[in-house]
């Protein structure tokens, strides 16, 4: 139930698809569309369109509920090489030492 409290507090624009369920290939678990919308904090998961396109017009829904800036940020997101992601996280962690 934690997730639902989280989404209520975020005051996410209401979506009729929020409770729909799909299997998340990143987590290996079933997730709601609401979770996918906020998987990356302010932004949806980068896989959201791939995972939900067949279920409903997810692009249209995202354009409706995301700010234009967040829509552009989502669609401009490039997948990162894993090693580079690790190095970025190492550098961030070293800065916290």
């Amino acid at each position, binding site marked *: *139930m*934690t*997730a639902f*409290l*989280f989404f209520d*507090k*975020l005051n996410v624009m209401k979506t009729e698809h929020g409770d*729909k*369920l*799909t*299997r*998340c*290939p*990143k*987590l*290996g*678990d*079933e*997730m709601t569309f609401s*979770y996918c919308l*906020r*998987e*990356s*904090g302010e932004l949806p*998961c*980068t*896989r959201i*369109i*791939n*995972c*939900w*396109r*067949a*279920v*409903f017009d997810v*692009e249209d829904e995202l354009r409706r509920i995301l700010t234009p800036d967040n829509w552009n940020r*989502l*669609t*401009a*997101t*490039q*997948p990162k*090489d*894993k*090693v*580079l*992601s*690790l*190095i*970025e*996280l*190492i*550098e*961030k*962690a*070293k800065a*916290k*030492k």
Partner: protein
Amino acid sequence: MEQVKTFLDENEIPRQWYNVMADLPTPMKPPLHPGTGQPVNPQDLAAIFPMNIIEQEVSSERWIDIPEEVLQKYLLWRPSPLYRARNFEKLLDCPVQIYYKHEGVSPAGSHKPNAAIPMAYYNKVAGTKRITTETGAGQWGSALSMACQMFGLPCRVYMVRISYDQKPYRRMMMNTWGAECLASPTNLTQAGRNVLAEHPDSPGSLGIAISEAIEDAVTTPNTKYALGSVLNHVLIYQSINGLECQKQLKKLGVYPDVVMGCCGGGSNFAGLAMPFVCDKIHGKEVKVVGAEPTSCPTMTKGPFAYDFGDLAKTTPLLAMHTLGHDYIPAPIHAGGLRYHGMAPIVSHLVNEEFIEARAYDQLKTFEAGIKWARTEGFIPAPETNHVIAAVVDEAMHAKEEGKEKVILFNWSGHGLVDLTAYDAYLSGKLQAYELPDEEIEKALLAIKDFPKP
């Protein structure tokens, strides 16, 4: 009685892992350090991995000796049996022999310990005192917890909170094996505290959990981090599976026409496939197929037709289930999301056309998994269902073509702690596909003039 299982004796277990880097016909481009713009060097990863593992990560040696201590742990369940799926063959009624490598017999129930055990071992001999990692639903976290216990290393697992709450059984497995399993985000790391300050009820994400595990490793003395997929050393450790398979098939006097695995990060697929990719690179005729998840309804709605295999139309025309090569969401055009999170070696081999990637939507995969459970008995992990769907597809093609085929695939794990996923499928909670027919017709215009298979 017809033979079902093929075993290897314990003394027949492979003594070396295979590293496909030695046989790549074209070299992979090294990743460039985001700060310096120079190729990443081993020292860049030294904060989170011990040097003996980093040496394997960058190794181009074809064969790497498996330490005796690792072999001894492998013997708890390895060599794993090779099965002939005779009941599933009968159900499909196609001209195929189907063999599967049963990786669900490991103590953690999946292929993951193949990599977790050497990681724990190499850390132990390198002087690491403690290991951190992240996990989603817990398959990797539980495997590493078991491996760390075997080598006396404390293990902390940052488990994505929403899965921590929804999937308690793997958390319990981690605790049983002596690991500390925490719901991420936590207040133990700056990364976690930042998230919690803004969203106290955050359900977490894999990205947050990775950040926490790495921060913990970097900022705590004698602590290292372990990753269960994607990286080269993981794929090397997993190769024991494919090497065993080759010995078992040799005993049967059989060589596969098609080798298949499900592809998430690439470790379970590569573990089975890479020794066969080696054969293919050296001239053997074998098709190697990775099955990945998608919600794009090509398999359920698309006809079997010739189409390009990529958006840029650079591949030869391939016979496939397709909704037309233009049927790809715009953001995927922009970001190339399809291979997000895939092992770079696997992606490279797909680009080089040694491996074929196919995508299957969730309903199709569960349908295949249910058929499997009702014939072969074993309940597959939901990820394993992807490759079973691919096997069904391949068998049907064999029937259509009137060709006999030997299919080998990796049965990567059991689904006994994933039964809520089956419940969601069986109760109709997983979403069905709703693309309108007119959109399909519009998409198929792109291939209307192509030859028909």
